Every structure is written in C-alpha cells, then in structure tokens.
C-alpha cells in the first residue's frame, strides 16, 4: 500500500510559522492583541496540536502515514519557535530601564523646546501658555521608540 503524505505535520508547522511571523506586522497593530498576544498563542497551540496528531499518526500507523522523521524534527523546531516567541514578547520586551528619575504625578514637567517634523521649534511652556488663542487645558506627551 502506498503511504499517504502526513498533512497534519506540515499544516501544523505552517501554523506555527504563521503564529510567529504575524505578531509584529498584523496583531501588534491592535491594542487588544498587542498588549497580550493571545491570537498568536492560540495559533501556536493549534499548530502544536496538529503536529502532535501528525506525530502520533506517523508512529501508530506507519503503513499508512509518512513522517516518522519529519514529525519529531518539526515538533522540536516548533517548540523552539514558540520558546523564542515567548522570550521575545514576555521577557525581552520587558528589558526596559527603571526610569526611577522620571517626573512624577504632582511634579513639574521639565520644559523643552524641540523641532517638529517641519523643523519648527515647539516649546512645552509656550504651548501651555497660549496657542495664539485660547490656551489649552493641558498636553499629553507621548515618548515613543521611533519609526523603524
């Protein structure tokens, strides 16, 4: 009897790759899947389950299914990719400076003057004093890592 291609293994590994590769371009765009990558973790779970099913098939039913080598190799790779993902999102992403000297609630925001995107200087104190018209009620400063 001709042995069948063990689709489960490859579908599982493909799902794991998708789980890994979609976080930054797709799911980190939305706050609900950015702050905790639950969609990606679900995809990892589905991929590993498919791989495990393929592995069981390859060993229980070797007359019908291929993959006795591919299944364990891809399963190990899949677990490695999951580990790398978890390290990146749950550990490396937390390697931030303590910023214990950052201004606190109730303190004065250090004034600054910085050029905007057109090179025009923008000063916090001038912006808060007046805007040419009605002075604003306040300002929200968003420090971000940059565009890359």
């Amino acid at each position, binding site marked *: 009897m001709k042995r069948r291609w063990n689709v489960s293994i490859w579908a599982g590994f493909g799902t794991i790759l998708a789980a890994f590769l979609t976080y930054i371009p797709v799911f*980190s*765009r*939305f*706050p609900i899947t*950015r*702050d*905790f*990558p639950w969609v990606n973790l679900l995809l990892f779970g589905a991929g590993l389950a498919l791989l495990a099913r393929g592995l069981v098939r390859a060993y229980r039913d070797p007359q019908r299914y291929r993959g006795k080598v591919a299944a364990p190799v891809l399963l190990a790779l899949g677990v490695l990719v999951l580990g790398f993902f978890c390290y990146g*999102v749950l550990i490396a*992403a*937390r390697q*931030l*400076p303590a*910023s*214990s*000297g*950052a*201004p*606190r*609630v*109730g*303190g*004065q*925001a*250090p*004034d*600054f003057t*910085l*050029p*905007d*995107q*057109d*090179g025009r200087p*923008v000063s*916090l*104190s001038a*912006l*808060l004093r007046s*805007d040419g018209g*009605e*002075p*604003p*009620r*306040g*300002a*929200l*400063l*968003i*420090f*971000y*890592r*940059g*565009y*890359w």
Partner: protein
Amino acid sequence: MCNSELRSFEERLGDFDRRGIRLLAISVDPPETNRRHRHEMQFRFPLLSDPKAEVVRRYDLLHAGGGPDGADIARPAEFLVDSTGTIRWVNLTESITVRARPEEVLSAVDGLPSRPEAMP
C-alpha cells in the same frame, strides 16, 4: 508597536481636542523621518525630534542601546501635563508591547479639576 500606539491616539484626537488637550509625540528620530512618518500615517499631531536624546534624558527615559544597531532611544512613556505644567498622570510601561490606551488617558483628563488654581 509605536505605530499602533500613535495610531490609537490619532483615532481619538477629536476627544482630546474637545477636552483642550494637545498631543506631542517625542522620539529620537530626526525631523525628516518624522515628516515622512507623519505623512505616511496621516497623524495630525506633531512629532517632535530629540536626536541627541537630551529631553529624553531629562525625563529619565533613555533606553541605552534599545534601538536598531544599538542606538540610544526613548523607552515608551506618557505624561499628562496640565496648563500649569504640573504632571497629572504618568504611564511608565513595564513592557514595550503594552502601551497606554487613549481611553485611560481620557478618563484621567476627565478626573482633572477644571481650574488648576483650585488644586490644593
């Protein structure tokens, strides 16, 4: 991640405008990058440029070596400042994937007294 955060604030810009809160986004990117970035993302608030991270350092937000090729960049952080320059709300995230959401800042704004002089 940064784009996701800035985009979410851009989407609620009208709510900040109505409350009289101006948005300023600050990074170490040069103005040319900010111009391109702002145009591409259609942001209406200014992107300020602090290439030597002087202001970033003054706010103790320097993430040394945190950028591409080990560049010094700002860690993500948000400060709500009232019209007297007093800080009323701060968010220093513990993870670069977790950012302030516009809704939490808006509710902090709504909790401010309308006249800062009336503050104790």
